[in-house]
């Protein structure tokens, strides 16, 4: 059996990043993700890597931009307010088509908000955050093991498509300890002929850039980028289903909310209610098809979220509003109890709210 070690979610991300070949970390302290920086600060100098505490999130994402352009596996991590500051840099990275890996261990907002777990950056990560038309691959772990395995996946996917990937976690999974294994780490390598390495006088200069003053050229760049995104949507969707085979109530939840929802689904089953769970693992690309298919089968959906109802919009879009979708939520750092989710399932059975 694979060797299992007890780790905190945030540390699992850091260790997995190192195992995935990341040797460059740039960040700025913010709760509840600081363990990632602390881990990197300890480890990187010992393995010939770079840990640098930047003067701000703005600086750190632009350091990431430089390192990514230089062809390195590079990452930064932060929490909600810090990710807002990184928005412009994320847009530049997307607009330059260089790969980078970003972690958002979300906390309640808006504003300074709080430091308790939240999922209120769903819109920010899946719909934009920075300016312009762009996408990030958004991975939502629901366990410490997934914090590690999705980190490795995030680096691989970023390099494969030369784009941004993000772990969208929350304070609970960040702080939680669980036994995990690094047995399955598989590092994929992709050529980076565009990287800034110095020409050595052997080739024409490489230019990493997001400026195209000619609108026709800029439009073309956008079209090409969206072709790439289409390929991601076609082949990289990840989700988990639980008891969906004969489900009549489809509960949808990601991250820590999915763990609560799973307990509620089990409790509903014990009462004889045919409930099931769909857990998107990639929030972008969103598992549209599995939800669309489920809409043929279930009577109603319940979206369980730690926010005021964000993923629910994607569920309605994916299911083309063919079934009622109700929201079961807490916000501001609060987490719904399995009982609250169970009540929402009961309400969905009755067809009310």
């Amino acid at each position, binding site marked *: 059996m694979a060797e299992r070690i007890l780790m905190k979610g945030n540390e699992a991300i850091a260790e997995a990043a190192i195992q995935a070949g990341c040797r460059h970390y740039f960040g700025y302290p913010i709760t509840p993700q600081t363990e990632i920086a602390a881990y990197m600060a300890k480890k990187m100098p010992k393995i010939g890597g770079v840990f640098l505490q930047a003067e701000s999130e703005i600086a750190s994402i632009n350091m990431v931009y430089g390192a990514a352009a230089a062809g390195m596996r*590079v990452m930064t991590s932060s929490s909600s307010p810090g990710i807002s500051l990184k928005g412009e840099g994320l847009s530049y990275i997307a607009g330059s088509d260089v790969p980078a890996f970003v972690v958002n261990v979300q906390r309640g907002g808006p504003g300074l908000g709080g430091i308790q777990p939240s999922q209120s950056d769903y819109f920010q990560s899946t719909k934009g955050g920075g300016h312009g038309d762009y996408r990030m691959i958004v991975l939502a772990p629901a366990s410490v093991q997934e914090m590690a395995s999705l980190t490795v996946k995030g680096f691989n996917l970023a390099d494969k498509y030369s784009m941004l990937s993000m772990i969208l976690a929350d304070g609970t999974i960040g702080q939680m300890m669980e036994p995990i294994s690094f047995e399955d780490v598989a590092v994929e390598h992709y050529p980076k002929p565009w990287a*800034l390495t110095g020409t050595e006088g052997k080739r024409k200069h490489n230019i990493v850039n997001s400026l195209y003053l000619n609108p026709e050229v800029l439009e073309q760049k956008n079209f090409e980028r969206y072709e790439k995104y289409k390929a991601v949507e076609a082949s990289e969707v990840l989700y988990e289903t639980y008891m969906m085979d004969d489900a009549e109530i489809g509960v949808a939840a990601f991250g820590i909310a999915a763990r609560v929802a799973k307990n509620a689904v089990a409790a509903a089953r014990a009462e004889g209610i045919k409930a099931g769970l769909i857990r998107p693992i990639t929030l972008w690309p969103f598992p549209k098809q599995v939800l669309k298919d489920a809409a043929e089968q279930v009577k109603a959906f319940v979206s369980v979220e730690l926010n005021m109802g964000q993923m629910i919009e994607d569920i309605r879009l994916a299911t083309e509003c063919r079934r009622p979708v109700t929201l079961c939520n807490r916000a501001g750092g609060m987490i719904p109890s399995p009982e609250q989710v169970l009540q929402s399932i009961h309400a969905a059975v009755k067809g009310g709210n």
Partner: protein
Amino acid sequence: MAIVFEKPKALTDAVLHYCPGCPHGIIHRLVAEAIDTLGIEGRAIGVAPVGCAVMAYDYFTCDMIEAAHGRAPATATGIKRCRPDNIVFTYQGDGDLASIGMAETVHAAARNENITVIFVNNAIYGMTGGQMAPTSLPGQVTQTSPYGRDVNHCGWPIRVCELLATLEGPEYVARVAVNNVKNVKSAGKAILKAFQNQVDKKGFSLIEVVSACPTNWGMTPQQALKWVESDMLPYYPLGVYKDRSAAKEAESK
């Protein structure tokens, strides 16, 4: 026939988009000459700013990146920390370096990041059509200070070299100008030294080049050069503000 004057190798054949009489072209040339002299073109990586020099990536033959407004020192840091054997330089305007990017500038200097920063001070936001810059002089008329810069309202222009010289971090900080032949010559020497310092792994070097923006100053190129002499240089005195190695040498003597 002997060739007595030619384009530096480190410049491409692209036609510069700068206004007629704009010193950006001269400063590009000085940077390229330094790269040629040190033979570092093959390992140089340049960081273009947001500002009139945004398209510098088309003008230098080395690898180039176009950074976000003000963030060039951070982007350069990312590159340099990954590729310490490459020669990394930024080329930034005053709005870029001393306003929106002041934090990145100060912290890169404080870390003594081993990069070369070329800072083009033209006392105005050139690219966006002539707004007040952090370096616009008291009384200077710009689009956003139409009655002249009122220091009681919007504060005083920032002297970047003097400010950075208070830090322990940076290796070399100097201000030069390109308003006459003599000054262009010393500017070239300073820029060369700023690159040499990086090659020698000495650390952060910043060369402030007092430049001009005839277009947005509303002057002919000749008038602009005169205004540099009469108005800019008294507020921004030329000279070396910090030279750690020289200071150490002097101490040890």
